[in-house]
């Protein structure tokens, strides 16, 4: 394991933890962006250049901006009076810890049985493009349809109230 991996893992996990723990919603959005960036760098560390740059474009470029817009539109920047954690926070924490324990146990127990390729895969963006319009063309079309439907649906859901009042 390279020191770079530990650095990026620490960055990603610190970003995720800060996103969950910070009080101010805007700070949470910023911390989420840090976590997304750390994940993109981990993808690059895994020699998945295309997925890494797609992660930067989609998550940092679009999802983080959407979150900031939602915070601004819902006046989420004001601090709530009665704390940021829900009344059943302890149960949620226990469930999350239990799931992490099970996952970590499964990884440590099971990963030795998996044969691991150490050579860097020689995959170019050209190969990915070929696969997208060749073998995976039907999923690509379905995703295009899904994205169109989701965009229209999000606009309609967010607009509905205004139309009814007119």
């Amino acid at each position, binding site marked *: 394991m390279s020191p770079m991996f530990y650095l990026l893992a620490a960055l990603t996990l610190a970003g*995720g933890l800060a996103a*969950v723990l910070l009080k101010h919603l805007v700070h949470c959005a910023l911390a989420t962006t840090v976590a997304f960036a750390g994940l993109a760098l981990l*993808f690059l560390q895994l020699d998945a250049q295309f997925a890494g740059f797609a992660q930067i474009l989609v998550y940092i470029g679009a999802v983080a901006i959407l979150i900031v817009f*939602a*915070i601004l539109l819902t006046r989420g920047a004001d601090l709530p009076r009665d704390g940021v*954690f829900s009344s059943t926070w302890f149960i949620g924490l226990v469930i999350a810890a239990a799931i992490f324990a099970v996952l970590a146990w499964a990884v440590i127990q099971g990963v030795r049985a998996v044969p691991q390729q150490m050579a860097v895969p020689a995959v170019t963006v050209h190969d990915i493009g070929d696969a997208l319009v060749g073998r995976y063309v039907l999923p690509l079309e379905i995703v295009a349809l*899904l994205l169109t439907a989701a965009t229209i649906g999000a606009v309609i859901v967010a607009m509905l*109230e205004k139309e009814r009042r007119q």
Partner: protein
Amino acid sequence: MTSVGMTTPLAGYLLVAAMLFAIGLAGALVRRNAILVLIGIELMLNSANLNLIAFWRYGPHPEALTGMMFAIFSIAVAAAEAAVGLGLVIAIHRHTGTTELDKINRMKG
């Protein structure tokens, strides 16, 4: 490689993904604000993507691109989910005046 599985790169990435998943799940379960719950769900989806990419990189057939494609489609679906989810949060806020999930306790508008 030593006897402890943690020293292999794949196990390291999988453990980071498991930890990020647990953090996202904790965020989705513990926080009051609906936007924070969506952020937690995004973190969980992202950790699943990290698993897919790690298995693609250290799997027996990386040239088949299966894990990579799965991750790319998963990124696209997660983007659609974020758009619809945040649209719903904005609609709920406009309707009830709050995004705190403890206070949203009616099914009927």
